[in-house]
C-alpha cells in the first residue's frame, strides 16, 4: 500500500531551492517532509462582519485589514524516521504550520513536499462523539483517519486491547474519564497506517501509567521507522523523544537544532532573556557583544586541568571571560549536566556573592567554582554563561557543553549522585 517510489516522481522541483536550510539529514535520501519558503497570512478585519446588515451599513470600513503573518518564509526538512519537535510560545504560528502541513489550511506561497503517507489529523480523538459508545467511536474515528469499515472492524479488538478498555466497550464516551478517552484516541491513532504522523499536544493528559505507555508506543513507532512531527509546549517530551527540534517565534524559525538546545532556547525565550536572532547552531547563545567566554575547563585542587576524576574527589569548574566593554556586576553561571542531559547542578554568581565587581574593557577574568564532588560515575559537561545584571537579565554569552569531565569509580550504583553517607547499626 505504501509506495514511496511513486511519491518521489511527484516531488516538485522546488525541493532543492537554494537557500534551503542545511539540515542534519543526509543528502543521499530525500526527506519525508520538505518545506520551502512557506507563507501563510491571515487577514484579520478590524471589525468582524458576520451579518449582512453590518456589511450594508458599513460597506467600506471592512476594507482595512490587519495582516497576521502566521507563517513567514519557513524552510526546513524532516528526514524519514525522524522525530521532529516544533516548539514556540502561544500564537507563534506552530499550529498554523502544522495545519498547513496536514493540508487543513492552504498556504499562500511556498511549497510543501511530502513523501510517504501523511496522517490527516492533528489531534487525538477528533470527531469523538460523547453520546456514542467506545465501539461506535472507534469505528467512526478509524474511518475518519482513513481505514475502511472492514479494516476498522478487524482492528477493533487490537485497539481496545491496547487502550485496556475491554470492560467499557459499550459504555457511551460521556461516561469515560478524560484519561480513558485519550487512551482510546491514542490507541486508534497508532493503528492508522500513516508513515508521517502530525500531532499537536499529545501528552498533556492521561495518568502516569498511560503516559509511560504512550512513551513506549512512541519508541515502537520510532522502531517502525515512522516519522513524527510533534507540536508541544512540553520540553521534557521534546528532550526525551525528538531527534531534532525547531523553535518558532512570530511566524519565523528562530532556531533548528538538537532537542536539548532548542528546549533551552525555548525556556530562554519564555523568560524573555534570549537576545533575538542571536542563536547560533553550535549551541552558543547571546550576542557576545559585551563579553565573551573564551574557555572553560575542569581542574583539580592542584590547579591541573582534568578530563577525568575519581569519584569523591573535589574539583572546580572554570571559565575564562574576556570583556569587550566595561560591565558592572555581571552574572556568571554554570550548568552541569550528565549524559542523559539532566541538569545535575546549576549555580550562578549572584546567588552566592553579593558583589563580583566591575570589569573594564579588555579585562580577562577566570571564574572558578570549587565543589566537593558528589557526582556519580558518568560523563558530565559544563555550560558556562555570562549575563548582564538587572531586572531582565540579558544573556551575553552562553556556550553549551564547553568542557567535559568523566567521573569514574570501581562500583556503579545507578544513582544520579553519590551523597556522602555513613551506616550505623543498632543491635539490641
Amino acid at each position, binding site marked *: 500500500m505504501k509506495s514511496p517510489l511513486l511519491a518521489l516522481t511527484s516531488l516538485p522541483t522546488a525541493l532543492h531551492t537554494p537557500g534551503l536550510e542545511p539540515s542534519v539529514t543526509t543528502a543521499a535520501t530525500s526527506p519525508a517532509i520538505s518545506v520551502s519558503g512557506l507563507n501563510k497570512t491571515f487577514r484579520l478585519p478590524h471589525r468582524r462582519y458576520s451579518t449582512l*446588515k453590518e456589511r450594508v451599513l458599513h460597506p467600506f470600513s471592512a476594507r482595512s485589514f490587519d495582516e497576521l503573518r502566521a507563517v513567514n518564509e519557513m524552510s526546513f526538512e524532516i528526514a524519514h524516521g525522524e522525530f521532529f519537535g516544533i516548539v514556540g510560545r502561544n500564537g507563534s504560528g506552530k499550529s498554523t504550520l502544522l495545519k498547513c502541513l496536514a493540508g*487543513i489550511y*492552504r498556504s499562500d506561497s511556498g511549497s*510543501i513536499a511530502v513523501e510517504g503517507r501523511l496522517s490527516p489529523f492533528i489531534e487525538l480523538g*477528533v470527531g469523538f*462523539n460523547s453520546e456514542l459508545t467506545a465501539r461506535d467511536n472507534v469505528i*467512526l474515528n478509524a474511518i*475518519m483517519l482513513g481505514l475502511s469499515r472492514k479494516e476498522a472492524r478487524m482492528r477493533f479488538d487490537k485497539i481496545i486491547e491496547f487502550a485496556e478498555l475491554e470492560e467499557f466497550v459499550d459504555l457511551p464516551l460521556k461516561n469515560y474519564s478524560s484519561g480513558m478517552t485519550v487512551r482510546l484516541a491514542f490507541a486508534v491513532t497508532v493503528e492508522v497506517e500513516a508513515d508521517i504522523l502530525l500531532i499537536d499536544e499529545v501528552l498533556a493528559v492521561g495518568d502516569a501509567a498511560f503516559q509511560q505507555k504512550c512513551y513506549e508506543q512512541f519508541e515502537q513507532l520510532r522502531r517502525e521507522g515512522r516519522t513524527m512531527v510533534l507540536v508541544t509546549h512540553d520540553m521534557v517530551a521534546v528532550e526525551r523523544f525528538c531527534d531534532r527540534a525547531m523553535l518558532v517565534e512570530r511566524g519565523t524559525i528562530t532556531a533548528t537544532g538538537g532537542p536539548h538546545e532548542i528546549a533551552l532556547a525555548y525556556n530562554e525565550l519564555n523568560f524573555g532573556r534570549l537576545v533575538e536572532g542571536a542563536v547560533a547552531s553550535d549551541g552558543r547563545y547571546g550576542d557576545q557583544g559585551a563579553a565573551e567566554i573564551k574557555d572553560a575547563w575542569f581542574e583539580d585542587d592542584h590547579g591541573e586541568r582534568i578530563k577525568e576524576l575519581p569519584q569523591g574527589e573535589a574539583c572546580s569548574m572554570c571559565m575564562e571571560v574576556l570583556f569587550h566593554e566595561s560591565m558592572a556586576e555581571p552574572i556568571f553561571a554554570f550548568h552541569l549536566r550528565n549524559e542523559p542531559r539532566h541538569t545535575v547542578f546549576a549555580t550562578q554568581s549572584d546567588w552566592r556573592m553579593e558583589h563580583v565587581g566591575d570589569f573594564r574593557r579588555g579585562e580577562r577574568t577566570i571564574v572558578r567554582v570549587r565543589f566537593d564532588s558528589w557526582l556519580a560515575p558518568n560523563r558530565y559537561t559544563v555550560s558556562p554563561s555570562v549575563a548582564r545584571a538587572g531586572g531582565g537579565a540579558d544573556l551575553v554569552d552562553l556556550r553549551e557543553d564547553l568542557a567535559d569531565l568523566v567521573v569514574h569509580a570501581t562500583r556503579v550504583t545507578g544513582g544520579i549522585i553519590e551523597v556522602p553517607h555513613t551506616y550505623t547499626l543498632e543491635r539490641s
Partner: protein
Amino acid sequence: MTVAAAARRRLSPEHETRRFWHLTWTLAVTDFKLKFYGSVLGFAWTLVRPFAIFGVIWLVFAKVMGTGHNVKNYPAYVLMSLVLFQYTTGIVGMSLSCLVDRQNLLRKIRFPRLVIPLSVTLQCMFDLGLTMIAVFIFMAISGVYPAWSWFELVPLIAILTLFGTGLGLLLSVLFVRFRDMRPIWDVLSQMLFYASAVLYVATSVPENLQRPFLANPIAAVLTQMRHAVVDPTARTAAETIGGEARLLIPAGIVVVVALVGSWAFMREAPKVAENL
C-alpha cells in the same frame, strides 16, 4: 510559486475515493442514529412531523374550508407532496449550517470537504426512505394502489435531491460568512412552501399563471408526481406547462442551482477551515 499540493503524497486515488464514500456513509449513519438517541419512540418521531402537519392541513383545508373537493385522492396528494417538499427543504436547511456544525472536524482533519454536505443529503435520504414506507401504507388505506408508474418517483426524487443539495451547497458556504442566511432561508422556505403546490394542485392555479408557476422545479416535480402516483387522469407536468420543451425551464433552474452551488462550494472549500 504556488503550493505544490499535488506533491502531498496521500492515499492512492481509489483509496481516496473509497475513503470519501466510507466517510460520507459513516457520518450519515452516525447522525441518523444519534438523532433518536435517548428518545423512547425513536424513529417514530420522524413520521410525526409530516403526518401531524398533514392532519392539520387535511382538517383545515379539506374538512373546514372544503378545498380539494374536485381533486381526486386529495389527502394522498397532500401527504406525498408534503413529504417530498420537506425532504427537499430539509436537505437545504441542514446543509445550511453543516459546515459550522462540523467545524471541529474541519479544523482538525484533512478530508474532502464535500463529505459533510453529502452526508447531510444521505441522511435525509434515509429519513425519506423510512417515511415513504408509512406514506405508502397510508395511501393503500386511502385507496391509492401501487402502479408501475410509481417508479417515476425515482427520477423525481433524484431531481429534488439535486436541487436541494445544490442549494444547500451554496447556502452552506454563504452561511460561513453571513450567519443571517438562516433567517433568510427560513422566510424563503415558507414562501417556497406556498409557491410549490403542496396544499393545492397546480392545475387549480389560474390557467394563464400555470406556465410561470411550473418554472418552480418543486411545483413541476409535484405536478408530475400527481400524475404518476396519485391520479393517472391528472395532467402531467409537460401538459400543464405547455409542452415538453418548456420543461427545460425548471430543469435548467435545477441544473444552474446545482452548478452554482458546486462551483461556490469548490471555490470556498479549501478556505473554509480558516474562515470558520
